[in-house]
């Protein structure tokens, strides 16, 4: 992650002659590149698997370009100072994901790619909506408790009778009017906003030391409340919904946010201890978790299973990959979902998978950079929370499919097949764009606009 070491922008903007770089031209250039890669990948799949250029290659290119341009133009209008790298990265990831889903369609004779493309359009629409509706991210900080409640309700929805239903043993779906949706994808964002808002208000209390235990300053017992509530909620989701991923993600993001808000390392230590205990408990109580764990230790007890096939695929791809359309990623069961990373690793090789991981890293670093530069604590926390949440998700899912850690159900952002995940991640990107715009926007020199709204803050002198 690149750390922004520049001086606060206010100093630079004292000089009126300096026009801040908006980077919109760069963004357009990178977007053309991203659309090019996406289309090339799509064409390459058909060339590799069928030996012919797909008939709709030009339409695909045009469509992708138009969608990207619309997003770009909206950014020009609504967030002119936004980080120019974010959108191109997201478009590239979506394009690669679509190409791989299309490739698996060819092998499985399915048509997931069209569905995914539709969801991408919905995602971009929501992206635009968010950018238009939320002119300033600080309005999100107003109702943290309401947000928190909404998030919890979203998490509990799949457990409700009638609308909730389970797919492959994970009770994380709701179905309304024939449409399936994973509300935890939305909850992820809503809860991050809620955490950020909540912590802005209470971080000073949380920073106060309580008892010393094993050389670690533990927070005061009464301040432990929120973290315990979230922890228990996470454990509750895990045991009831039979899915480790969202719990780890939820709890991990929350602990990181508390740490950032309070600057007290003891929260991290406490968090790690609680995660450890939670996993231990889950291992002993939830059979599903134990299976995943055993499979992690010896994936070849099931040589046709996802993990073994994922490893075989990665090995088969080797350093430079088999080439799109020329491997056997369809041998990984339901590869288009959680294991799309392994499918890409097989056909694009170590080189391609490394590039994808670095794209994620770059995207996250842009979020963290915005977090560093932003001046308001809520914005800082929200940007950091969204960025680290994204990274945790990527780590948990890619680490899982590559047997670095035990597998737990999470989608690969932007790549994997799944409407809810794709749409909500576009919302997340919209928020990152909004935040980076705020971070890079030159500070108002004359009259501060937000004095009335701003929450009274404790000023820290480093």
């Amino acid at each position, binding site marked *: 992650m690149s750390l922004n070491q520049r001086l606060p922008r206010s100093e630079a903007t004292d000089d009126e002659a300096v026009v801040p770089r908006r980077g919109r031209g760069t963004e357009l250039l990178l977007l053309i590149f991203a659309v090019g890669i996406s289309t090339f990948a799509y064409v390459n799949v058909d060339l590799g698997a069928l030996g012919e250029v797909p008939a709709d290659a030009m339409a695909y290119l045009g469509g992708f370009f138009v969608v990207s341009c619309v997003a770009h133009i909206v950014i020009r209008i609504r967030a002119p100072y936004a980080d120019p790298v974010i959108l191109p990265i997201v478009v590239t990831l979506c394009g690669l994901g679509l190409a791989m889903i299309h490739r698996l369609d060819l092998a499985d004779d399915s048509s997931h790619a069209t569905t995914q493309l539709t969801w991408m359009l919905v995602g971009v629409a929501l992206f635009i909506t968010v950018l238009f509706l939320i002119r300033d991210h600080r309005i999100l900080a107003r109702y943290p408790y309401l947000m928190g409640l909404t998030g919890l309700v979203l998490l509990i929805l799949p457990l409700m009778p009638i609308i909730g239903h389970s797919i492959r043993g994970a009770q994380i779906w709701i179905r309304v009017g024939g449409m399936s949706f994973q509300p935890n994808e939305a909850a992820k964002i809503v809860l991050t906003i809620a955490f950020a808002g909540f912590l802005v208000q209470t971080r000073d209390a949380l920073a106060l030391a309580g008892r010393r235990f094993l050389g670690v300053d533990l927070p005061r017992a009464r301040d432990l409340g929120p973290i315990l509530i979230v922890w228990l909620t996470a454990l509750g989701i895990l045991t009831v919904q039979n899915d480790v991923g969202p719990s780890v993600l939820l709890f991990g993001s929350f602990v990181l946010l508390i740490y950032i808000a309070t600057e007290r390392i003891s929260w991290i230590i406490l968090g790690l201890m609680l995660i450890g205990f939670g996993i231990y408990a889950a291992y002993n109580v939830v059979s599903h978790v134990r299976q995943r764990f055993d499979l992690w230790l010896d994936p070849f007890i099931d040589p046709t299973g996802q993990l073994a096939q994922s490893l075989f695929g990665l090995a088969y791809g080797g350093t430079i990959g088999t080439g799109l359309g020329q491997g056997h990623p369809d041998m990984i069961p339901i590869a288009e979902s959680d294991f799309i990373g392994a499918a890409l690793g097989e056909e694009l090789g170590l080189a391609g998978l490394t590039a994808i991981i670095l794209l994620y890293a770059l995207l996250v670093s842009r979020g963290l950079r915005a977090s560093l530069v932003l001046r308001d604590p809520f914005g800082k926390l929200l940007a950091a929370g969204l960025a680290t949440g994204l*990274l945790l998700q990527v*780590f948990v899912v890619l680490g899982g499919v590559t*047997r670095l850690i035990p597998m737990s159900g999470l989608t690969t952002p932007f790549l994997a097949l799944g409407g809810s995940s794709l749409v909500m991640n576009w919302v997340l990107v919209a928020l990152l764009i909004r935040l980076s715009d705020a971070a890079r926007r030159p500070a108002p020199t004359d009259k501060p606009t937000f004095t009335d709204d701003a929450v009274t803050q404790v000023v820290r002198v480093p």
Partner: protein
Amino acid sequence: MNSPIRRVSAGCLLLVLALLVNITYIQAFQADELNSRGDNRRVIIDEYARERGPILTRDDEPIAISEEVGGDFQFLRNYPEATLYAPVTGYYSYQYQRSALERAQNDILSGDDDRLFVRRLIDLVTGEEPKGGAVKTTIDSEAQRAAYDGLEGYKGAVVALDVQTGEILTMASTPSYDPNPLASHSFSEQNEYWQTLKDDEDKPDLNRAIAQTLPPGSVFKLVTAAAAIESGDYDAESVIPGPAEYPLPLTDRTLGNQSGQACGSDDETTLTNALRISCNTAFAYLGDELGDDVLRDQAERFGFNAQPLTEDEMNAATSRFPDDPDEPQTVLSAIGQYDVRVTPLQIAMVSAAIANDGVLMDPYIVREVLAPDLVSTIEQTEPEELSRAVSPDTAQQLTEMMVEVVENGTGTNAQISGIEVAGKTGTAQSDPDRPPYAWFTSFAPADDPRVAVAVVIEEAPDTARDDIGGGALAAPIARAVMEAVLGA
């Protein structure tokens, strides 16, 4: 708040590094290990995805072909005649590797050979699926069939050679096995059949024609006779002792004739007559007179103590004449007993050398290597002289002696009407507990030799022990093979 954000960023960097290190380990370092696992279907699919080149007989009959069957495993190796050519083709199996020509010529058949490099390059550019080249053997399909049919019901082997080139026209071995189940796309089928093979005491996958050595018995008398004439001290008409019993030197044991009688009046016989009736005592006398060095030297000039078919990598066994026999052992060796051990191929080589004016041609089984288009030749094997076994004059005398064996001696069963046949029988006792090995070797036509044959019957379950003999069991098979080659 910035310093914890920086620390968290550093933590994120660590997680990314962990992911990258992990995939680097898997895809760059652990890949070979994962790719060689037996339960990795991807690699198996690859193996079966390429069209393997065919193996052909000299008359272009395909004996191993790849058939497109569709599905995950695209090509299935098929052996149309299964057991008939199994000793030649060998098997091609995912789990049990390959054998015989499938193993030796694997590079050509799979298309990986360097000589196919340019073609692979062209395929890469044009997008054609690479195919393997073809291997054309020296096997004559009619002779092979005649040999295999003749061996039916026996445990034994037949080798036939083109005497002028060294080409192996026949390489049959029974009981044989079916390479098809081993090439099956069903691993359990491969497994089951492999177990059946390994459990079978008759070892059907043993190529008895070249890979197993047996005591030659009387057919070795050809070598002893050759050594005698080559020494200059004897010729076909020389009179030598041929008593009913020959006392083994340095022992109080004696060596007797099969008939229990002397081989001629006054316990004497001519060399020709000794060979005709396969007189043990006369050849024992010759062996004693010539000594083991002379016999070994003659044997080696016929190809003993050297591995044949090394060029073709067929894993042939080396036929042996003992290194340092004492006097009685030399005497026993001279009549093909004691520690003399031969393959049917070796015996065929002895006949072939005699037939080819004393010049031994190096045997080979790959006649031509063809490009995947099955038309252009990549390599053609040129016949090569291996050694001069005997002088043309000796060869001529031996031929006449062998003709006598078939006309009036132990080998009458090998006679072909209208064609003069030269031959020699052998019935080798190895162990009192098991039936003797019945041998026959011959070549024809005697005046203008083309084909030399060696036949061995190890076991003939339906034949009474006393009826087992080279002339009775083996000679008819040799005749059938020679007839097939000569088109008679």
